[in-house]
């Protein structure tokens, strides 16, 4: 076992896992975290805690993850390369491990120009692929980057992201291969709407045997409205939403768009479950945590397996 986390053990057992996502509050309001946690508890196998996503300042992912553990959920702590150099990363990882955090996601991070402090200086000392390698070295060789021994046992199940919808398309699979080479244990993908392109990508993944070297969780996000779909397609780089999905939402008519969005999502989740190489789903229902139970029920993924 790499960290013995619930997520790792379920994946090892061959269960089809589902991870959720929780965005921390813009302040120290613990109740916000607890409320969202309660909605996710029992409905997903682990919960991603975003790290100042889109460069908007929020409660730290490490502190939020600790609260989740206290609430009886398993966190998957995200860490971005934007705000920390290698010194701060390793230090925070020791702290995270001491708090019982067993899963993490290594990310480059959205550029600070997107956030609420665009005046900030960024760090980008090491990139997400080097971060994977760093965490793996810490775990498997008990060493820091400099080669010094780590005091105590450092365990972590190492995740990273992959975006099959970014460009250049033909290179995306090679970047995933680099993450595998660096030592990643699991991958969560960017939100999938363009199933055709995703399947093309997965074919390359399977041909290269990457799905056997790391577990791949397919990312999905419910579309709440036509406006949201259009906004995401136009403004979130690396997201492609085919017109036919937007047409379906439009066709649902007033008052039914959200329901149609959930219907589309459930179909996607089913289809992804049948797709070769996919070991689970990463369900990003951001600010829609209260719908997660309903979605999981509808798609027939409840109750969640236990070890």
């Amino acid at each position, binding site marked *: 076992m790499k960290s013995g986390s619930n997520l790792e053990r379920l994946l090892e057992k061959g269960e089809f896992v589902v991870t959720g996502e929780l965005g921390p509050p813009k302040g120290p309001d613990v109740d916000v975290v607890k409320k969202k946690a309660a909605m996710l508890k029992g409905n997903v196998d682990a919960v991603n805690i975003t790290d100042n996503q889109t460069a908007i300042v929020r409660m730290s992912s490490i502190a939020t993850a600790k609260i989740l553990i206290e609430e009886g959920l398993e966190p998957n702590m995200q860490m971005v*390369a*934007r705000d920390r150099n*290698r010194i701060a990363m390793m230090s925070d990882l020791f702290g995270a491990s001491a708090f019982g955090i067993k899963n993490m996601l290594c990310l*480059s*991070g*959205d*550029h600070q*120009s*997107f956030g609420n402090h665009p005046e900030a200086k*960024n760090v*980008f*000392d*090491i*990139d*997400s*692929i*080097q971060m994977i*390698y*760093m965490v793996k070295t810490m775990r498997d060789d008990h060493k820091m*980057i400099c080669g010094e021994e780590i005091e105590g046992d450092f365990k972590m199940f190492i995740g990273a*992201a*992959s*975006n099959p919808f*970014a*460009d*250049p398309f033909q*290179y995306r699979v*090679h*970047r995933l*291969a*680099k993450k595998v*080479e*660096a030592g990643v244990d699991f991958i969560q993908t*960017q939100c999938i709407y363009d199933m055709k392109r995703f399947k093309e990508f997965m074919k390359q993944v399977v041909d290269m045997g990457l799905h056997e070297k790391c577990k791949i969780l397919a990312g999905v996000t419910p579309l709440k409205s036509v406006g949201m779909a259009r906004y995401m397609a136009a403004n979130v*780089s*690396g997201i492609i939403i085919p017109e036919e999905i937007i047409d379906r939402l439009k066709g649902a008519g007033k008052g039914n768009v959200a329901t149609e969005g959930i219907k589309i999502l459930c179909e996607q989740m089913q289809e992804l479950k049948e797709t070769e190489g996919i070991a689970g789903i990463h369900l990003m229902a951001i600010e829609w945590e209260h719908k997660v139970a309903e979605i999981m029920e509808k798609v027939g993924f409840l109750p969640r397996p236990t070890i």
Partner: protein
Amino acid sequence: MITADRKPFEEIKESVKDYKKIMVLGCETCVAICQAGGEKEAEILASELRLAFGNEGNKVEVNDELVVRQCDDEFMADPAFLEKVKEADVILSIACGVGVQHACKFFNRVITDKPIRVIPGLNTTFMGANIDVGLWEERCLGCGDCVLEKTGGICPIARCAKSLLNGPCGGSSDGKCEINKELDCAWNLIIERLEVLGDLERIKPVEMYKDWRSSYSGGPRKRVREDLRL
């Protein structure tokens, strides 16, 4: 070359308002080529200042001078020129930040009977190239350990918004960077270039952590050539 932009006029005017004798000092190298601090720009700035102060009834003498390079002693040693420097209350240098500092240090070394005040009239921006008429782009951050050989001659440190060594990130879209649709994604350019060269294999292994000691992170840098110092 080093590029720069002139500071807003009001800021410049505010910075020299307490002086009666102002020398606008242009520099004939990088900043002249990027049309921010050369001969013509020095003349224009001097006349704008004369006009602005004149309209306010403020009697100020503004002259303009030019040297080949303010980052080099050799071009500033002319005694007649130094006499003019000494007479001025302030030197408004429109060289890059290097020139401003070097001119200040040089003047105060050779002119010992009076402290010389040198202030900047430009905002120095980057090390870049003139891409097209009226267009300059950043190309190098002087990291001290060049990786261009591996990346098809396109710098991931200066030209990728996240200085990724194993790019492109998930924000690369249609060849553009996630932070700005006007900006080429450096990693997209690198991949395109390596494909043409048949060298794509080069970026397949993981590129390890960069040692930033050779860059600014290692503290302000000094270059010593012992052989030349003997």
